[in-house]
């Protein structure tokens, strides 16, 4: 727990720091969007498909919209959507996993099977199917809410699986038994013993998960099943860029670069955090 409070520790870790810097940059750019970028929705058919220039640093798309603005505003979209999805899945998944692991018995058997079932279906197929189901039941095309809901349904499982696994093994550890024999209540054990041990790996998972979710929502966007244009979403922009690859390759270049940077940033942060929270135990040779 001390590691969480020692800020310098984080900044010293090169991997974490690089990732954090990248994400911070993206966040700042996203926040400053109204000041640095123009209107991403404004079409300008005269200047459609024009290459990068001073007025349009990333060029324009097939409707003349400024790509630079689209990418900048797209950062907002991706980050906000990804963070909300991760947060809600985390709360949902960790709660279910922890309860399942701690209560054990029949409840755990059932929830464990449910988790296994979800894990057997490849993530993207499930995501696509969920989007499809939601589109049909609400009788609309895909939208930001459909994406959020669909991905949450698929995503909570990763958190649940890890939490459940950790709680199950922690439950058997000696310090828990000791606590129990000293008369501690279940709540006490849960909050004082189990949760502090679980927090570290969950934070690592959550950080890496945001990167995954960004990949998922942009993949859905690319397939045309995600957040729809004109809302600027990186994957969706790539989808339209695909058709103009020969004459306007810049449409496909920059959003993809942005996706890669964002995911790289979160992966680096996650790796760095993993080193901090789960240091590899050094073999002591000298006895």
């Amino acid at each position: 727990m001390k590691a969480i409070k020692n800020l310098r520790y984080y900044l010293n870790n090169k991997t974490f720091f690089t990732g954090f810097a990248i994400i911070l940059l993206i966040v700042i750019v996203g926040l400053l969007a109204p000041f640095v970028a123009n209107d991403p929705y404004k079409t300008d058919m005269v200047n459609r498909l024009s290459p990068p220039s001073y007025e349009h640093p990333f060029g324009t798309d097939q409707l003349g919209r400024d790509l630079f603005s689209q990418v900048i505003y797209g950062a907002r979209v991706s980050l906000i959507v990804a963070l909300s999805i991760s947060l809600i899945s985390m709360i949902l998944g960790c709660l279910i996993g922890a309860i399942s692991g701690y209560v054990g018995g029949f409840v755990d058997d059932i929830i464990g099977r449910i988790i296994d079932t979800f894990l057997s279906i490849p993530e993207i197929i499930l995501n696509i199917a969920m989007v499809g189901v939601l589109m049909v039941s609400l009788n609309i095309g895909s939208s930001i809410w459909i994406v959020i809901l669909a991905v949450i349904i698929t995503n909570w499982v990763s958190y649940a699986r890890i939490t459940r696994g950790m709680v199950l093994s922690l439950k058997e550890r000696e310090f828990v038994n000791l606590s129990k024999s000293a008369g501690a209540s279940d709540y006490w054990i849960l909050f004082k013993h189990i949760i502090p041990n679980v927090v570290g790996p969950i934070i690592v998972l959550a950080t890496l998960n945001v990167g995954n979710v960004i990949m998922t929502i942009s993949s859905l966007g690319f397939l045309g099943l995600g957040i729809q244009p004109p809302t600027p979403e990186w994957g969706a922009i790539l989808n339209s860029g695909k058709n103009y690859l020969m004459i306007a390759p810049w449409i496909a270049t920059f959003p993809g670069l942005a996706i890669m940077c964002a995911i790289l940033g979160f992966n680096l942060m996650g790796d760095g955090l993993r080193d901090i929270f789960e240091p590899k135990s050094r073999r002591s040779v000298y006895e």
Partner: protein
Amino acid sequence: MIKYISKRIIHIIPVLIGVSFISFSLLYVFPGDTAELIVMINTGTEPSPEMVEKFRAESGLDKPLHIQYINWLSKAIRGDFGTSWSSGEPVMNEIMETLPASAKLFFSTFAISVGFAFLLGILSTLYKDKIIDHACRIWSLLGISIPNFWLGLVLIWIFAVHFHLLPAFGYGSMEHLILPVLTWSMSFMAIKTRFIRTTLLEIMNEDYITTAKAKGLSEKAVVLKHVLRNAMIPIITYLALGMSHLIIGSVIVETVFAWPGLGSFLVKSVFTRDFPVVQALIFLSAVLIIGVNLVVDILYALIDPRIRYSD
């Protein structure tokens, strides 16, 4: 060992049932009337109550839910997933026709990725902390961060548009295979290399490796004779689990390169609201993954003498 295998088989039965249930219930989680929805989709118009009732009786949607589930399941086990709403053909036929294309892509990619991942992983371990190790690690990190679809487009632009070396889209010849396999391999390989390297390094730290070195074995002999065999166990498990990753890539890569495989079939079916196909693909992909995991578990038991010769 027989006990171990039978335990595994018993474990997956509820999971299979769960998966079938999810696939089946896709059509029923909607608010609103399913029959009405289906007719609306199929005919494209607002259906009249008579049409809906007729359809309901014909397709068995008037029976209680659990009877419908059992009907669906009993047909599914025999491979009958009904007929496609868009083409009218039996779903299974369409899947079988599309399968070879996906299989071609999948096996080529798997072979190349795994081969390279092993090579890079072993090199990385033998030359730890030297340049080649750092290069491999950076490559791995980039590989898991690059979106497949973007990489595909970049490669298309370089090889097809700019240099006119390879075809951009389509299916048919070896040349059509190169770019999709290249794209798909890069990200898959990156993930696996990281894991192989980590596993090999962990094993290098074990006591019995010191014993092996103390016997005078060279570094290469230690890695090849002692480390690899131990590493196979977690690595094979991981590669099998990676099937899931592979299938993820397949949907994207097939879409980018217009490769007529099961991935693009799925996407098309979602767009056309062709639910029998979607149900079938979900169910079959899950069965595939469960099956592969089971095979891996058995393989695991065969390779690890601690399980093979246990009481």
